[in-house]
């Protein structure tokens, strides 16, 4: 039984409507409690900014990132942000660290912790390769993890949609989540992965998937329906078609509109649209490329069925990795960059390509602006999740830099001044003077995640919540975040304390302990008769088309040493 009393914390806890107020926090056995005994260990926060542990709701941290690492020995020696990148020798507490965009598993755990993050979401788990994802999860110290399972070009899914079998579809989704120990439904470029099986792509929501006679729109609608039928804690999580292409903002808005009438089974969004920066492009080609963020933001401001995340692009080297196979191939040809690809039988495609966002390149400069425009033009912060789609738009150690861009118009103006004239004319950012405050930042970096993932014990500091706490070395009462952006960046780059499940894991920016984190997954049950009927079809798939036996397909318990099973029942 361990107790902790944090005194004089200035707490920003939007889920509990606490707007940076001075208070004490009591911690017992890893949870926030009303009070503790006098034997509790005392931490004097001294008026420092205190938030729930950060929650990255969309990052690539396990599985596909290993493809990126494998092809990038050069990344392992990059050290643009000392303390949060590059090679670091092991200590008595920590293992050896390497890398920047594709750091090793240990570095991922330590560096997220230093930024005050305690929970991360792997954004793409192919079912067949899920075992690998969980092996890497196990190797990432400290953090709690959850992962989204891919259903974008899955044969079983597309056939059930084509054959109009919504119950069997839901049964299959439940089985696949259980098989992959996933938390929710991820859909990447719906249908595009199957087309990529023939080196082709789908061109939009209504372009039928070759050989399957279904459209991306049908895939989205049917999986949204299955999601609600299974009463899943998260909504469908979508990466829209046509990502990365000029003019794609129309596809993005159309995809959002398509899902307006989804009836949700829980009090949450009907759809989460991810890394919208990459899907908010206007123009007809790269020559007349310009921001589409104002149009997308306009639509979102009038909608109340969705959340989205930014996918901000940060200047410097990055590593793109996505289940959007055809996009990555196109990137590699455009950029003359190295290209890895991994198509997964009956399920998915994927690709990995290194990129550099250069402030001198007009397209990159506009991309840099678009992510920020989305954050600032959408009025309600409870619709906006902060991400860089790490490491696609930039690796997570750039988050402190990204926060300060959103919090300081002055800082933005200084950077915009140095951008190409052509780029400035194609972005909306120079005309935006909104600056996020710490409360809004707390919403976008931990509170909205708690709501959109249905994880009441995460992203807040109310009684009963997990004692995942970040204390940053700035005083909200005295700091002017719009001017003192350097101090803000420094504070967010290394916490005074990060506390995970009640244990101090970072102190004064250095790792103090490395416990193992938990893995959250969703076990949805459907009526047995429906499952049995579905299994008849699935068994055939394994017999005829998979290269592994069904018995060896599902992730075994051995790969989740600290599981947290969330049970739901089909409606």
């Amino acid at each position, binding site marked *: 039984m361990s107790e902790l009393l944090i005194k004089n914390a200035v707490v920003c806890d939007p889920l509990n409507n606490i707007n940076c107020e001075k208070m004490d926090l009591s911690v017992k056995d890893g949870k926030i409690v009303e009070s503790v005994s006098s034997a509790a260990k005392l931490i004097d926060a001294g008026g420092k900014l205190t938030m729930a542990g950060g929650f990255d709701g969309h990052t690539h941290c396990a599985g596909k990132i290993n493809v990126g690492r494998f*092809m*990038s*020995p*050069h*990344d392992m*020696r990059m050290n643009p942000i000392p303390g949060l990148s590059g090679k670091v020798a092991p200590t008595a507490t920590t293992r050896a660290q390497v890398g920047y965009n594709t750091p090793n598993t240990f570095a991922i755990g330590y560096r997220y912790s230093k930024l005050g993050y305690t929970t991360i979401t792997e954004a793409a788990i192919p079912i067949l390769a899920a075992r690998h994802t969980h092996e890497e999860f196990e190797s990432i110290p400290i953090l709690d993890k959850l992962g989204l399972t891919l259903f974008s070009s899955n044969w079983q899914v597309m056939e059930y949609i084509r054959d109009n079998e919504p119950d069997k579809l839901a049964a299959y989704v439940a089985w696949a989540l259980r098989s992959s120990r996933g938390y929710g439904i991820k859909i990447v470029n719906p249908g595009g992965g199957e087309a990529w099986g023939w080196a082709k792509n789908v061109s939009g929501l209504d372009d039928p998937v070759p050989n399957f006679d279904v459209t991306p729109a049908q895939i989205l609608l049917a999986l949204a329906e299955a999601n609600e039928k299974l009463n899943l804690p998260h909504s469908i999580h979508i990466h829209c078609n046509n990502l990365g292409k000029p003019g794609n903002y129309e596809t993005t808005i159309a995809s959002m509109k398509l899902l307006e009438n989804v009836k949700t089974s829980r009090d949450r969004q009907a759809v989460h649209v991810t890394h919208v920066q990459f899907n908010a492009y206007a123009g007809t080609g790269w020559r007349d490329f310009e921001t589409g963020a104002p149009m997308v933001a306009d639509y979102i401001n009038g909608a109340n069925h969705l959340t989205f995340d930014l996918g901000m692009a940060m200047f410097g080297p990055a590593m793109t990795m996505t289940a959007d196979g055809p996009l990555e191939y196109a990137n590699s040809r455009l950029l*003359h960059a190295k290209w890895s690809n991994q198509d997964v039988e009956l399920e998915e495609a994927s690709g990995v390509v290194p990129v550099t966002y250069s402030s001198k390149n007009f397209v990159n400069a506009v991309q840099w602006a678009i992510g920020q425009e989305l954050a600032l033009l959408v009025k309600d912060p409870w619709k906006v999740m902060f991400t860089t789609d790490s490491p696609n738009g930039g690796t997570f150690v750039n988050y402190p830099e990204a926060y300060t861009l959103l919090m300081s118009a002055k800082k933005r103006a200084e950077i915009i001044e140095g951008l190409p004239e052509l780029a400035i004319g194609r972005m909306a950012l120079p005309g935006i003077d909104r600056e996020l405050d710490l409360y809004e930042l707390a919403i976008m970096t931990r509170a909205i995640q708690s709501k959109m993932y249905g994880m009441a014990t995460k992203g807040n500091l109310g009684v009963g919540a997990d004692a995942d706490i970040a204390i940053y070395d700035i005083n909200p009462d005295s700091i002017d975040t719009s001017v003192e952006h350097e101090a803000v960046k420094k504070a967010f780059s290394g916490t005074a304390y990060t506390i995970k499940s009640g244990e101090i894991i970072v102190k004064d920016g250095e790792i103090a302990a490395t416990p193992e984190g938990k893995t959250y997954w969703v076990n949805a049950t459907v009526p047995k008769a429906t499952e049995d009927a579905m299994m008849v079809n699935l068994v055939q798939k394994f017999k005829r088309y998979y290269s592994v036996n069904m018995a060896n397909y599902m992730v075994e318990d051995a790969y989740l040493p600290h599981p947290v099973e969330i049970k739901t029942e089909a409606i």
Partner: protein
Amino acid sequence: MQIVTLSLKEQNIVPIEADTITPDNFAGKSTDEIEAILVYYGNSQASIGELFNVSVDGSDSVENTKIIFDGNVPRVKRIGQGMSAGEIEINGNVDMHCGSNMTGGKITINGNADSWVGCEMKGGEIVVNGNGGYYVGGGYRGEACGMAGGKITINGNVRDFLGEHLCGGEIIVNGDAGLLPGISNSGGTIIIEGNTTMVASEMKAGTVVVKGNVAEMMPAFREEGTEEFHGVTFRKFTGDVNVGGKGVLLVK
């Protein structure tokens, strides 16, 4: 002028990594100070004084500092790594990565240089009076650029992958070169006096001249008449066509 003379007290087997041995690090320092500088020796560190006899003559700026290795140092890596000025003379064979990442100054090796000599160098000059190993002027694994500036002269032969991923600078080999010299050249110049094979594959830009025989030409170059180079007429090829290359390859 400051002259620092080093000789190994005893021939080592496990390699010494001596990236601290540069004029930049030695200039203005006394014998004692230089002896105290640490190098890696296997999985621990040792001082220069423990491993080398050190004598220092004079004290001067980096530009006017010369380091002389008296005898072979075939198990001492990374000598002169990152140096910006001054001079190093090695009177014998030297281990890998000599002069890697250097930006200025001069290294003369009166013996053979093991692989990665002048790796990723950006300026300055390296002269090897014996043979070079693999990846002369090459790059680190996975990098897009090897050597980007400066000049390397090898008076003997070199092994495979000469100037891999060259992005600038000049390499002259007075002997023969092994497999695939000038592979993925993106803008540097390579002159090979002797024989070689499979030259300039995937060259995007730059120039490669082979004065001896090319045993096997890459089937990815287009012949475009002749060109004079240093008063001699060569057959001119451009390519590599498979990377849309605009490089020039001159062969006999």
